[in-house]
């Protein structure tokens, strides 16, 4: 079960990690201006999909998202939410990927693309649950009239899970799931495919 790969693979990974982290920060900084408008637009689209009238709003304002409803008074119930809180986990995920040996070799691009798509989907859902939580809890009588106790509990739970466990654990899960051979080699185990 154990491979004879010496521990230097892990040491080399740890030596590459700071540089990989710097690279990940650069990618994040370059991608952010393009990514955040798409994130807000996709979330708003999903929120309005089954809504009558379609009034949920996710408005990009600098690095934040303004969450609210267009059919309520302009000065009521808008929340300014920092988008970095949602998409910062791209950085640790990319750092872990880039610190692997030959992370972008042939065939690994596809895995990276799938992982990034999953991460992006989690970001959209995370922002969506923030919006639904705001609507269900923070708009006074309107919230109570439009959301049942069950719905409020469901949105509260979803918001909590996407706010902390999903945001923090997804980089590790995607990293192990997308690159099992390389991660298992780091751990001193044979590649799963060989067993």
């Amino acid at each position, binding site marked *: *079960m*154990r491979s004879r790969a010496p*521990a230097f693979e*892990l040491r080399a*990974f*740890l030596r590459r*990690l700071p540089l990989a*982290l710097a690279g990940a920060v650069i990618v994040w900084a370059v991608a952010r201006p393009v990514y955040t408008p798409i994130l807000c637009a996709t979330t708003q689209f999903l929120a309005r999909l089954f809504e009558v009238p379609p009034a949920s709003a996710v408005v990009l304002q600098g690095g934040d998202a303004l969450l609210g409803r267009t059919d309520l008074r302009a000065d009521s119930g808008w929340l300014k939410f*920092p988008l*970095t*809180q949602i998409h*910062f*986990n791209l*950085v*640790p995920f990319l*750092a*872990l990927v880039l610190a692997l040996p030959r992370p972008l070799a042939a065939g690994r691009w596809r895995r990276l693309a799938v992982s990034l798509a999953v991460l992006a989907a989690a970001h959209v859902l995370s922002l969506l649950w923030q919006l639904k939580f705001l609507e269900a809890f923070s708009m006074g009588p309107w919230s109570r009239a439009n959301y049942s106790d069950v719905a409020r509990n469901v949105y509260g*739970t979803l918001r*909590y*899970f996407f*706010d*902390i*466990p999903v945001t*923090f*654990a997804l*980089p*590790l*899960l995607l*990293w*192990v*799931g997308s690159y*099992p051979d390389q*991660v*298992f080699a*780091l*751990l*001193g*185990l044979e590649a*799963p*495919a060989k*067993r």
Partner: protein
Amino acid sequence: MSPIRAFLGTPAGRFIGTYALVLSASFLVLALRPVNDRVVNPYTTVVAHEARLVLNLFGEGATVSGQVLSSPRFSVAIYNGCNGLEAILIFVSGVVAFPSPWRRKVVGIALGFLAIQVFNVVRVVSLFYVGVFRPQWFSVSHVFVWQSLVIIFGVVLWLVWVRRYAVAGARF
């Protein structure tokens, strides 16, 4: 057999499935109000007191009220998500999900808990000083820098534990 089911049959898939299950269950338990009131909040207060002790070594004259750490120069409130519990659960779930003997898991959890405690106190103290000297950088340091480092620290700790202590007795 579906690709997902096939993947969950591999060692990596079993690890991920178990990890996700343990992590979800532990965060669900933490979210319960009695656990939050009797465990999470007192634990967060302990973290605030640890940071206070370090800050007072530098003559800050810091005090703690609930989960708020204050000094004449700056104050920080330590919320759930900033108390290190998320890093501890990421690490502990990885340890529990890895198929190694329980004795090694217990040792790993105990040592990892201590390491993350130290790391988190460094985080709180550094954020305090960012707030004192560069308050305009506080938000980016808090959300972006330290949360990224927390995730990476948890993963590196788990890798080191597996490689040095757990892999010898691992059973897949």
